[in-house]
Each structure stands twice: as structure tokens, then as C-alpha cells.
């Protein structure tokens, strides 16, 4: 084995992303994801069913409250399909942000006792939630069969939006988890921000409710474009491409900005946590 020489010295300012090191430790990331999945539903009766029940129950409530009582209608498909496809990426995003924001402070022992790329802590929680996203997409498959709604070739574009959603969630998660180490205020801010976020994201309403000239601006919320993209790929909903492209760009910006901020604050973690 080649001898690795490592120089430990004070780090100042912005840091490189450390992709190489992350690659060296990739097995550990897999273990952390595996741990999160293993422990999430330990000692529950329904176990993994919870990850399906959450979006299903959400959809049911949305159908009752927004569709039946408030009279909000979809942009084509049955409202329950419409709501479910919006909820799937949003639930993933929202759970990812809230879990990863607290991930560092709940792993205090790891941070102050052992070295590995810190980024794996928020990344691991997000990775584990990808399983939930997969499960809810398979439930969607069942719903689509039930409603006789056919998939088109547009589904091939879905991976782009999944990656975009993961990047947006990771970027926000990186930034919040790191800031949470310095200021626990974040812990109280996140649930509130996520609640607000759902209303500025077209999860329960179709995007046609937004005037067209505001739509590109609307795309500054990366999740707007992702939710619309999910609907486009799975249900064939109409899209306004400038919005989608703005959002995709925002996903990249969120991801790298979050990563940079995380790398910048990282060196204080063990001393401050």
C-alpha cells in the first residue's frame, strides 16, 4: 500500500469540496445510510409502511380540504394523482431538510470523537430518505393503474428532477446543519420555514394560478420547478420551461453554496458543538 502523507495544519477561509476524500470514505456513507434506514422505524408496529402512509394520508387530506371544500382543481389529471405527485418530492425535500438540519447536533458524539468527512452526516440522512421517495413513487404507480393514467416517454426525464430535488435538499440541509452547530436558532426556524415553503411551492395548487410574468421569478424557489417537473414527467402536465430551467439552475446554486458554507464552518464543529 502506498504511504499516505497527510499534513494537519490550520485551515483558513474557503475550502475545496473534498470529493476525493469523500470517495475514499464512500463505504462509511453507505453504512450511515443503512443505519438511518435500520433505526428509523425500529420498535414501530407498522414499520416501513409509515413511509407510504405519510404521503397517502397527506393526499387524502388535500383532496378533502383543498379539492372538495376550497375548490382548487388540478391541471388535468385527477386531483388525488396531482396532489400525490406534488407531495412525493415535497415530502422528500421537507423531511430531508428537517432531518439533516438536526443531524450534526444529534451526532455530537461522532463529531467530537472521530474523524470522517463531516458532510456524510447530513448526506447520510438524505440518502436514507431516498428509499422513502422510491417507495412513494411505487405507490404512485399503483394509483396510476387505479386511475388508468398512462405513463409517457416523458418519464425518462424524471431522473433529472430527482437529482435536482436531492441537490436542493442537500444544499439547504448542508447549510442549516452547519449553522445549527453555531446557532441552535436554526432548529426552531426550520419547521416554520418548511411550512411557509410548501405554500410558495405549487404542491396543492397548479402553477396556472400564478400569473405568467411572475412564473420565472417563481422558479427561484428550486422546489417549484422540481414539483412541476415531476408532474410533467409522470402526469404530462403542461410546463413553462423558463421556470423549470431557473429552478434547475437554483438547485445547482443551492447545492454548491450549501456545500461551500458547510466546508467553511466545518473546522469549528468539534470546538463549538
Amino acid at each position: 500500500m502506498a504511504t499516505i502523507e497527510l499534513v494537519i495544519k490550520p485551515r483558513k477561509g474557503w475550502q475545496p469540496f473534498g470529493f476525493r476524500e469523500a470517495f475514499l470514505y464512500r463505504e462509511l456513507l453507505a453504512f450511515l445510510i443503512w443505519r438511518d434506514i435500520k433505526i428509523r422505524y425500529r420498535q414501530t408496529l407498522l414499520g416501513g409502511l409509515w413511509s407510504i402512509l405519510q404521503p397517502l394520508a397527506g393526499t387524502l387530506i388535500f383532496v378533502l380540504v383543498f379539492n372538495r371544500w376550497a375548490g382548487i382543481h388540478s391541471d388535468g389529471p385527477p386531483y388525488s394523482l396531482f396532489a400525490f405527485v406534488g407531495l412525493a418530492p415535497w415530502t422528500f425535500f421537507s423531511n430531508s431538510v428537517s432531518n439533516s438540519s438536526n443531524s450534526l447536533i444529534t451526532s455530537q458524539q461522532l463529531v467530537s470523537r472521530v474523524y470522517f468527512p463531516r458532510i456524510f452526516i447530513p448526506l447520510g440522512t438524505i440518502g436514507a430518505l431516498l428509499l422513502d421517495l422510491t417507495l412513494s413513487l411505487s405507490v404512485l404507480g399503483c394509483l396510476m393503474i387505479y386511475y388508468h393514467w398512462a405513463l409517457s416517454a416523458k418519464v425518462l426525464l424524471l431522473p433529472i428532477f430527482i437529482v435536482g430535488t436531492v441537490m436542493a435538499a442537500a444544499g439547504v440541509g448542508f447549510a442549516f446543519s452547519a449553522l445549527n452547530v453555531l446557532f441552535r436558532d436554526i432548529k426552531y426556524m426550520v419547521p416554520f420555514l418548511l411550512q411557509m415553503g410548501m405554500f410558495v411551492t405549487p404542491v396543492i395548487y397548479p402553477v396556472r394560478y400564478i400569473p405568467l410574468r411572475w412564473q420565472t421569478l417563481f422558479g427561484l424557489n428550486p422546489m417549484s420547478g422540481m414539483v412541476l417537473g415531476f408532474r410533467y414527467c409522470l402526469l404530462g402536465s403542461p410546463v413553462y420551461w423558463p421556470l423549470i430551467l431557473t429552478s434547475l439552475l437554483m438547485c445547482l446554486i443551492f447545492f454548491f453554496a450549501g456545500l461551500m458554507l458547510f466546508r467553511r464552518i466545518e473546522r469549528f464543529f468539534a470546538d463549538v458543538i
Partner: protein
Amino acid sequence: MSNVIEVRNLSKQYRIGGVKARNETFREFLATALKRPLRSFSSSKNYAHDQYFWALREINFDVAEGEVVGIVGRNGAGKSTLLKIISRITDPTDGYIKVRGRLASLLEVGTGFHPELTGRENIFLNGAILGMSRAEILSKFDEIVGFSEIEQFLDTPVKRYSSGMYIRLAFSVAAHLNPEILVVDEVLAVGDMAFQKKCLGKMNDVSRSGRTVLFVSHNISAIEHLCQRGIVLLQGKLAFSGTAKDAVQYYAHRAMGGAEDGASGNYVDLSQAAGRWAQSRPLLRRLEFCPEDGKSLKAGVRIGAPLTIRVHFTLPAPTSSFDIGLGFENLLGQRVFTAHSAFEPIRGHNEIAGPQVFVCEIPSLTLVPGEYVLRVWMDIGQVEVDKIDNAARFQVIPSDYYGTGKSPWNGIFVLKHHWYLADPEENSAVAPEALPAIEPPLG
């Protein structure tokens, strides 16, 4: 041999009060961040008025390949900070460390154990966190389980384990780490006696396997036993570096107590003694040593020589129910002998409040050569009212105690004893256990 660890001018500064002192609140942080964007996380120059504390100051040392180095120091001397920097958990403030080779550090056993996971699952998780690959863990799995002695509970969540089982499993994973350089912090004091012995044995194997080990412990006998080299840290500075034996001696002598400053000649002023506990006010004032022939205590006390210790103290109220105790401890922290005035059958009592002197006469001090720490305390009505842990320190030096020119050096104390060959005609008239024996050496 080449150096695998090079530590140069290593310093680490902490801000007292942590982040609070920097940005009192989130509000204030936002205010600074808005005023000077991008500078809010930058260096400490802007906060020069804050309280700082150097946990480490300009540390320099090298560790050669295959060396087992012990690091000793009191609490707060910077040992853990040093290990944290070497393990890359925290950054140094200044200086650097060069590490050549795969390094694994064990600052604690069971890091990353999750209570909800089973023993089996935790072996994999903990192994991965400590830097083992999946293949490595798989190949050592049986060995780890065997060492931990918890086979039956492998599929039980560790939250249902007893604390002993938990620690055994945690140590077993750690013990099977196989890095080129191992950094260990006080992980030996775990488990029951039998398991501790096993752990020490394992550490012994590791230290003999040609691996480079950096080992921090309060257990100086373990350091002396396991390490070749020793480093003493004193208030964040490197105070001594040499053989493990010398380092332990130095540590015991310099670092442990405030005794060396007060001991001028045969008097030890106790008024400023460090490591004192007093119920209300300090009553013990001074120790006066009277070795044989009016010699100086600094010259050391010969084995078997008489030693008189006069304890000067203040009696706060007239009473006859007061006692003085003297505890003799060796460098391993073992109490080897206790002299207590309550052991004296006939003693005169001076029931006058105020300064008094209690004299303890030891006709023959039969301790093995070495350094001893004296602990002194005072009881009134059988309640401890004043005590000093490291009141004084003295040396017992070799002498011809047995009259053969051979000086005893190991064991704890010396005892007059006789050897003779039994008359071949008689069949062992004296049972062997009737003869006094010298204690076997420690460790």
C-alpha cells in the same frame, strides 16, 4: 527508522466561553454578517479583547515508525487536545503535524454505537466509523465476537445490554483495528477485572507488533509497562520527552504536586499547598522532617533508616479528640503505608487550642528505593477537617539493609527474612509458608 509523525510548533487556542463570546446572539451575528458580509466567520483578529487560553503551546516532537509513545499529563495539560488534532477532529491554531501512513484513533470506545441496533449491526457500523472497510470487518467478525464474549446476545439491540457487555463489545471492535498508526486515549479502564487484564494483554500485543502507537493515560504504570518513550505535557507545553520510565518519574516528580516548590530543606510549608481540602480553614501548617544524623531530606532516606516527621498544626478549640494521619504513596499511586496517631496506644494530649506539634517517629523505614508522596490529614472527633494530597515528596535510596551488599529494588517494602538449607536428614521441618517472602514485582 523514519519518522511517521512529526509535530512542529503545534499550538491550539481556545476562546473561553466558546462561541458565545464571539457573537453573543444570533441577532448580533446577523448584524455583523450584514455589516461585513463574508467576514463573520473569519479569523479572531477582530475580537482581540476576548479571553483566550492556550490548550497547547508550541509542541514539537517526532514519533518514529514502530515506536510506542506514552503521553502523560494532568487533567487540562492538553493531552486530549493533542490527540484530537492528530486525529483531525479539530484544527490547530498554529503549527502542523505530518502523518505518514494510515492512522486510526480511539478517543473513546463505542463511538457511534447506536442503542437501537443489534450487537452484530453495531460491529459493522462502529468498525466502519473507526475506518475499517466492510471486507476487513467481515474477515475479523468472528474474532471480534469471540473476544467480546457476547455471542448469545449478538442479535439483541445494544440498549438491552449491561454496561459491561456494551463496553466489552465496544473494546473488541476497537482492539481489532489494524492501522499503521494507532492513537489511543484512556480506553483501558473498562470492564471488569478479568476483561481489563485481557485488554492490557491486547494492548501489549499491539505494542509488540511493531505498530506505531500513541497512548494517553492517567495510568502511569500502564504507560511505563507498555511504552518505550514518554512525553510529559505540563499546562499545554511539552515539559519532558525521553524514555517512558524517565517520563513517568519526571511526571510524578514535577507535574503532580506543588510539593517541590515548598520543600526547602527539611521543612515543607503547607500554608500554600496545592491539592488541599479543608472543612473550614486550613489547620495543617508545616511538616518538618528529621532524617538520621540531621541529614537533609533531599539526600534521600536510606532503606531501613529512621525517619521522624513533625507535623505542625493549629488546634482550633480545646479538645483531646484529634488525630493526624500520614499516608505514604508510591509513584503508582498505591498507598504503601499509613501512619495514624490513632494507632498509638498511649499518647499524651495537650488540650490547648492553638499551635501544636505532633511527632511521628518511624524507627526503620523499610520501603523499597524510589520516590514517595506523603499525604497528610487531620481529624477532629474522627471527622476529617484538613487534608493535603501531595504534601511532600521524598526519595528512599538503596542501602545495605540485608548486610550482603545487595540492595532490594523491587516489591513494595523490605522485610527482614532468613534463608537456610534444610538439613538433608530432616524432612522439611519448616513448612515453606512459615517463612516470610518478598512480594513479587508489580505488573
